[in-house]
């Protein structure tokens, strides 16, 4: 299955500081915006969850249809979003 994924690093104050679209599947034109939209909304989930666990890697914190959002939360509260999805 070919995947495209969006990888975003979010800094303090929830500001995106790095973004990359990776994957071998032909890109949908709106994929970047779609990913950004989903990842931005997932910050709500992450902010709730980050305080309830000591784990740094939060797997599948949010789902949006077939898109899965996973997060790596660093000690300085910088979040990394790898977002594998299953565009076939």
């Amino acid at each position: 299955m070919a995947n495209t994924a969006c990888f975003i690093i979010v800094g303090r104050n929830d500001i995106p500081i790095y973004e990359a679209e990776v994957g071998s599947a032909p890109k949908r034109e709106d994929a970047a915006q779609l990913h950004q939209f989903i990842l931005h909304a997932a910050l709500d989930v992450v902010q709730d969850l980050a305080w309830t666990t000591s784990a740094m890697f939060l797997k599948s914190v949010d789902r949006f249809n077939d898109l899965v959002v996973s997060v790596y939360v660093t000690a300085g509260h910088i979040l990394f979003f790898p977002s594998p999805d299953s565009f076939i």
Partner: protein
Amino acid sequence: MANYLAQFQTIKNSCDRIVAAVEDVSDLWPTVKELFEQHQPLKRAVLTNKTRNPVLVENLPVEFILTTDARLRSRFPHEQYLYWFREPYATIVLVTCEDLDEFKNILKPRLKLIVQNDEKEWFIVFVSKAHPSNDQATKNAKKVYAKLEVDFSSKKRERCCKLDIHGPDANFWEDLELKITECIRNTLDRRVQFYEDEIRKLTEQRFMPIWNFCNFFILKESLAFIFEIAHLHEDALREYDELELCYLETVNMPGKQREFGGFDSEDDQAALLKPGSKPLTQMVHDDSFREFDFRQYLFACQSRLLFKLNRPFEVSSRGYSFVISFAKALTFHESVLPFCLREVWVLTACLALLDATASHHNDGIVAPDIEKEFYRLQGDLYSLSRLKFMRLGYLIGYGTDIEKSPLNSACLSMLPWPKPAVWPSLPPDASSEVLEKEKTLLQATSRTKHFGIQRKPLPLEPSVLLRVANRRRASLSTGNISEIFDGRPGFTEGSGLEASPRTPSSLKVQAAPMSRTNSSPGNFESPLDRPMRLAEIFVAAEHALRLTISDHDLLKTLSSVQDFEHKYLNLTKGAAENYHRSWWKRHGVVLDGEIAAVCFKHGKYDLAANSYEKVCALYAGERWQDLLAEVLPNLAECQKILNDQAGYMSSCVRLLSLDKSLFSSKERQAFQSEVVNIAHSEMKNPVPLDVSSLITFSGNTGPPLQLSDGDPGNLSVTVWSGFPDDITLDSLILDAWLDLQDGFVHGKSDGRPTSTFFPLVVSPGSRAAVVFSISIEKTMPSGKDLQLPESILNIKYEIHGDRAAGAHNPVDAADHSVADAERRDLVFKSAIVLQRPVLDPCLTVGFLPLPSDGLRVGKLITMQWRVERLKELKGSESVEKQHDEVLYEVNANSENWMIAGRKRGYVSLSEEQGSRVVISILCVPLVAGYVRPPQLGLPNVEEANVSSNPPGPHLVCVLPPLLSSSYCVPVK
């Protein structure tokens, strides 16, 4: 089995509380019945739960039934075990007697007979009818009661209590409650034990071929019901949870093909909160139940108990998970179910859960985090129902009324289309509807974005509906499909989710022979030899949905665009409101944006602007520029329509400030022209506006620039423009002037520039200059009283606002205390030091040439100055203390230079004219590049008497250090 189930359900439904039997030995019940019933329910009953722990149950209702009642008499013994929950939990023997002999000879043997049954939990209520004034009667009653106690009570257990009808009864009711409770507790323990044993036996046999789930269900549900009527809801819930696990295990057992269900009328309406919506006999199939009905039934029983436990939050939480997991099961059977039954079921399930949980929820009675989570779940339920509602609307042609926003696109474009075995066909008499639909489609014009923004609309379809619908029509050949896409070379399959492998092909094969009026839309007669047009697909879907949907209210919401929009707005508002309450601001604000879109469509621009502002503030605050770029033009459009010039201009400036790649240059030029138009349009009330991200001033960094006589006098000030096009700053910049340091005066009197470069036009890459004319002041004030040691270039600009980012912080020009503080002028300032020419040179300091191989970082060099006396310093004794010694001082920037030796000291210099001395210091350059060399100063000599060569500040070139071989990596 069906008979048993019917009987079981009837009996269960007729029984809602614990029963206590009354053995009315002395015909007392008519007298005391009312009194007994007045003291119901039992206020504090301590019962034992399944884990054998005491549980305090408050307000436990008990129904009293005479043992002679038909309901208790007509049962066969084997029924008692099957439906034990309806058997009495306590037997109250009511007696009265005032004669001891009568008691001994008649009453006692009778009572012994009554209570000899070991399985009964009993106690005796002795009713004394004796009036307190009748001493003899009272005494006799006491004697009989005492004898009764001796005969029937034991040390282990008190079995008697006495009710004085005419006397004080305070203790009696308390005593009665304790005794009833004790009986109930003991009976409950025994029955629970019995059921547990039976259930264990059946559980052990569950992999045997003879095993029957319905038997297991009756036992398990009976036990759950026993707990429920004893108000041990937690235990009852556990029984249902276990029952569910066991059921799912049987459902998922390989090798057994079971009927799923979902074909009864009104099955489209989720029944997950109505346990009695369908009789058990209608759910049963072979030795088990249909999954479609039974899982909903179980959930309904669980949620009923959760509501009794006052945990609506858990109903929401379990409900949401249930809807998701049940929708998966529906997907699996989608091809045999009525068209869009899954969508309709999910929608009605979410709405039912929302209704029920909201009415049971009271703010503030649970912990804040639970409450927050509750609202989050409500938001999720609203979102899910909103999504399904949009999907249904889209299928019948309301897609043009759904905003193509990132949210809607993200929701709908990733949600696979329904997968009926055969796509609904057009009914024969629908031509007028098709025409009407086509007309609507033609009339629907996609709204062009403000500023002429050209964007491909975000998709709402996971793949092209036209193709999917036609492909799923059994009669169409591939050739026909290709016809319809002629002239659509750019067509692609989209995300391809439609081809998700989730639907096994075996199901499709199986589905073909199944026919049901509302499940096979293919029954409609229609021109099957050609592909359907989009309008036909919509009309066909609408007809099929009318057959699927049994709820008239839901049908009404889909009956017209207005109704659709009304419901859509309600669902969106519900989701937004609940997300806000749960502090999920991003989810809430994004939905506010969707509400704004509807408001905009209906001309409620003020409401739309308010909501859009929230969305923009969120994205701008967190600097998610791509998302901001999508919504900010909408806000700007509202502001323009509302004639909110300030807001509009601010939005235009913000649009210009966004990353250049987000808009085409043409679009950016449109933003700019709007800004300029408004700036020139004489606004009634000039408004503060932050353009710091577009216009930035920057002076020289580092120490003030020093200019001396003969320098060209260039002071560069960079004005950086982020505008895509030339911008004339006359509407933005008021003024520029130079405040001169002491010793200099303006050539013109007002300090204004000599040239008339204003209005200044700034275009990317352009340069401009402003020339000031200055001259030396004739009367120089004494050196110590300098008022202004350096000149300052001032640029005052009109645009106001707070700057959070940028290269230079503006300075407030106006006094803050001025009432009109909102209209503060901002001033850009840059300092410059002017040097007066040397008028009376006595000493000359010459910087000696540096070595020819240049300076290099880390390499020691000697820097030399030659000091020569040009003439005797006759009149300057006061300045030099010792005439033959000169004080020198070397100043160097310690970041650039390391100085070895003395930086300050005296050197001998004869007073004679022409005497000279060379001052040397060792120093090491620390950084490469053009840097200012160390400066030699003569602190005790007036500046006017020292001539320097070179005359002003100058730079030397320092080369980077040589590469050291020890740091080099050999190249192979």
